[in-house]
């Protein structure tokens, strides 16, 4: 598989790899994909008092495209409000990384990971009710 420079940059030196404390009420966590499908992304966000994503961390089991997609999306959502982060579409990720069409699902998974982490954050905040976001 021939990947773009942008993919290789993130595969070789991914930013934002790691974990946040799942128990922290300001942290939202998501795990998307399945080992049997060959892709799993774990993504975590920390939201500050102004509603902005102050930290974003990920860990990915998957191909180069999956690693690069999750790394890129964590770069993009940092400093954004949860509302803004939800606007990021998988197509933008795929285009930025020049993903081959067969790898488009990796960017879909990254978008899904962000959406689910935000949802988890609000579910925790609102005591089980997933607030204004939906």
């Amino acid at each position: 598989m021939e990947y773009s420079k942008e993919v290789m940059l993130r595969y070789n030196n991914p930013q934002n790899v790691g974990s946040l404390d799942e128990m922290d009420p300001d942290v939202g966590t998501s795990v998307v994909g399945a080992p049997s499908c060959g892709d799993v992304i774990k993504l975590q966000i920390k939201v500050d008092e102004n509603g902005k994503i102050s930290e974003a961390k990920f860990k990915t089991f998957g191909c180069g495209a999956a690693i690069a997609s999750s790394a890129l999306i964590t770069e993009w959502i940092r400093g954004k409000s949860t509302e803004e982060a939800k606007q990021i579409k998988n197509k933008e990720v795929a285009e930025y990384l020049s993903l081959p069409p067969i790898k488009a699902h990796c960017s879909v998974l990254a978008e899904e990971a962000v959406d689910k982490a935000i949802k988890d954050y609000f579910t925790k905040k609102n005591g089980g009710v997933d607030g204004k976001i939906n």
Partner: protein
Amino acid sequence: MKTIYMDYQATTPCDRRVLDEMIPYFCDIFGNPHSSTHIAGTIAHKAIEKARKQISDLIMIEDPNDIVFTSGSTESNNIAIQGVARSYKLEGAKIITSPIEHKCVLESCEAMKREGFDIVKVPVLENGIIDLNALENLVDDKTVLVSIIFVNNEIGTIQPIEEISKICRKRGVLFHTDASQVIGKIPVDASLTDLMSISGHKTYGPKGIGALYVRAKPRVKLMPLFWGGGQERGIRSGTLPTPLCVGLGKACEIAQQEMHEERHRLMELGNYFIKKIMDNLPKVYLNGDMEKRIPGCINLSFEGIEGEALMLNMPDVCLSSGSACTSDSLSPSYVLEAISDREEIAHSSLRIGLGRFTTLEEVEYVSSKIIESVIKLRAISPLWEEQWNIQKK
């Protein structure tokens, strides 16, 4: 960037000695080997008959005329399966094969299914060897052909050809084997079978040539795939490509001379490779059978990481993986799926193919590179983190 080739099951480079032998047959000795009226044809014909002899010697058969040249083992497999099916249809309509055959065997069987044949797949055990008891029970009066791959191209396991042969002979059923991966690597006795497919480019010969051993006594009837001048006993019409036939013959001759030594060399290199990886990394599994395998084919699964990502970290090394991400269809290796119920085994797999030109230095470099890459990728894998947490608890 100097690349290291470790994908000898996909193809092998043509040996220089093979090429040297072939060269004169392109421009100088160019006669049609089927032209018996003049010297140009006769010389080409002689070269082809020499190649036939070299091939038959390697697979331990007496009569070189049992060898039919084809364009490669895909064609050989197609001729064997479809040819038998269409010739023996009145005697029965059942073909037994396995789930770990090469695509060309599976697809040929599918084609015969559309022509009314019953295709039955004998189960494969976890070590990649077919279940002989199951085979014994499956072979019945309706069965016309059993086709089992001699050595699988992904995991390198050697099937019990002698036992399969016995089961087939007892019931009077024809036995075909795809021997593409085994020729020249370990001693092979084609007389245990009725049909055997051979490939040139898997054995340091040229691409575009293969052969099919077709037992003549008693004669195996084969309906040809296409029609023409009736060359190759009418089984495979078309003018023979003299240089390619000569190349396959020479490749077989070299393999026969060097097999013994090469087999031990590769076994040592391979075992060293496996030991080094296993000593340095936890949770690595060898797919297939540790004992019943050809030297040089190593298929490993590394828990917690994906195969394509692993290969991406070593762009200077040519390897392959059963991961879905490396296939155009996005489906994982059906061979690995057949031997394990854990799909991630396929996604996490890497096939390392050692061969004639592999050196100890290359083995050292690639094994170190794999260890380094696996550690790097496990550090960013949520599955490995989970593993780790479970262990800590």
